[in-house]
């Protein structure tokens, strides 16, 4: 399976998903008006990946900010990885990075932690 690499743009984050290492990184900002257009290929990639995932999967979220349209898609990304984790195909962990003075992003990590059945680590950078 090929890695998924999408360059950062004004309204969308960079995506670097490596199926061999299991490191899936989302970085930058995510504020497209219609986030589904952007996230659809990501969901499709994840669907294939979850069938034969790496033994360990780490989702690295390094976002400066994201809009409410994207918040839904982020939740979907996590939810799509839950079965691989609960079924034992891959040990999935989420590393949620936030800047030390950014309470909003820390809170956002907390929000997802409350909704998603994956282990979260909130990491101050």
């Amino acid at each position, binding site marked *: 399976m090929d890695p998924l690499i999408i360059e950062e743009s*004004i*309204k969308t984050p960079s995506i670097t998903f490596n199926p061999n290492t299991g490191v899936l990184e989302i970085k930058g900002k995510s*504020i*497209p*008006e*219609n*986030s*589904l*257009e952007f996230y659809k290929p990501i969901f499709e990639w994840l669907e294939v990946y979850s069938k034969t995932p790496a033994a360990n999967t780490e989702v690295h979220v390094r976002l*400066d*900010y994201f*809009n*409410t*349209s994207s*918040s*839904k*898609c982020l*939740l979907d990304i996590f939810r799509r990885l839950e079965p691989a984790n609960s079924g034992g195909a891959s040990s999935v962990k989420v590393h949620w990075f936030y*800047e030390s*003075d*950014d*309470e*909003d992003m820390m*809170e956002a990590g907390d*929000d997802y932690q*409350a*909704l998603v059945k994956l282990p979260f680590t909130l990491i101050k950078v």
Partner: protein
Amino acid sequence: MADLNIYELFRKMEEDDIILSFKGDITQDLLASVYQIMEARLESEKEEPKRKKKFYHILVECLQNVYHHMVDLKEEHGPDAMESTAIFMIGYGPENSYRIVTGNFISVEYVDGLKTKLERINKLSPEELREEYLQQLSTTELSEKGGAGLGLIDMARKSGQKLEYSFYPVSASHSFFSLGVTVH
């Protein structure tokens, strides 16, 4: 355009501390430009990063809220109708705050529902706003156009302020809806 005194308009905007104002069709390209202009502006003012992010975040939600409504109105009335245009203003408010005010048309049938929603949001405590946000986030689906139905809750939650709003009846079928958010 009849006898418009552009200097009067300029002075009015200057007095009202308006940084940026736009009236017309709200497109994705326009919003991309507005984000870039405001980012550069905040950069040049040496605004502290934490506040800059908060402002930017709320700005995006306010403008996209209008954008999503405009998409609906354009479908309904065609791109050239007055109802298919909107207005927004970004400026300074009291005590070194930022103000974002948007205005757009809304079908009268939606007025009561929206009013009820806004009244409810304004009564919620920060903890209740979080619960409401999580509830909506985990249960609702994105609309076809990518609206999450979370914008107003998010604006109230992130700004920590009450949302200011009004409805002006303009015709039998439409009201003009204005929404103001202050970012401290």
